[in-house]
């Protein structure tokens, strides 16, 4: 495959392009299938080979597409595991899931008199980290996808 940001050939499992450092499945400046430069910013298919410029991935209405630049997985993990449970998920686009996580964390925290804090914080942090990692590698995620 080719990097969607700079057009250089890259490994299909790579999370970052060796030439430009961007997530290879995120950009639409170059076709990821044939490497042809895309001069039309609003084009959704490559004029050279006809492949989808979004990497041929599903783009359903409930799917969250990778951003450019991608969110930092570590920061998202920390926001969910440190500042507010579910905040990382909300920033990544999983707003209902983030709100549910927050409500569950508060409920669990009150029931356990605060002792349950580490469990929920770590779970929410790891979840936000892994979801951000999926988006960083160019894979879309659904609104309720976990880990």
């Amino acid at each position, binding site marked *: 495959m080719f990097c969607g*940001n*700079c057009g250089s050939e890259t490994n299909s499992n790579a*999370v*970052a*392009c*060796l*030439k*430009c*450092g*961007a997530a290879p499945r995120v950009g639409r400046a170059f076709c990821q299938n044939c490497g042809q430069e895309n001069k039309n910013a609003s084009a959704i298919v490559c004029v050279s080979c006809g492949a989808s410029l979004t990497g041929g991935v599903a783009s359903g209405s409930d799917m969250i597409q990778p*951003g*450019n*630049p991608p969110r*930092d*997985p*570590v*920061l998202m*993990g*920390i926001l969910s*595991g*440190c500042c*507010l*449970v579910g905040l990382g998920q909300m920033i990544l686009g999983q707003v209902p899931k983030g709100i549910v996580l927050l409500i569950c*964390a*508060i409920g669990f*925290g*009150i029931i356990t*008199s*605060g*002792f349950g*804090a*580490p469990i929920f*914080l*770590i779970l929410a*942090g*790891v979840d936000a*980290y892994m979801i951000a*990692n999926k988006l960083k590698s160019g894979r879309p995620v659904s609104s309720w996808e976990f880990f």
Partner: protein
Amino acid sequence: MGVLLRRWIELAAIVGGVAYLAFVPALPSVPTCAYRVLTSMPCPTCGTTRGLFALLHGDVRLAMQSNPLSFLVPLIVLRRGFVLTTYGTRCSALFNHQAIDRTLMASFFAIALLHYLFVALPAAIR
């Protein structure tokens, strides 16, 4: 939203946050941890804001006492700032590896949990 605008907004948020903590004379007495407000128990990351404030004002000892995460968070924020400023160039890939991500995340939770179990929790129960 454009790529450049998103980068600038995130960079501005980072610089603004650091500048606020560095130049404000004292932290406001508003509680920042929702968990502590609701349960009156500290969470594993309680004290990080105070620690960052102390660190930015040169008080390394107080930063360590508040929460050792105060030393890790600046590294994470600095790395993100570097990745954002060099995004799209070769330099960006220097610190943008999954191995670094995993190490930072694992260190963060390990420090948070150890501090909670051996420092924050015993102090709260006493």
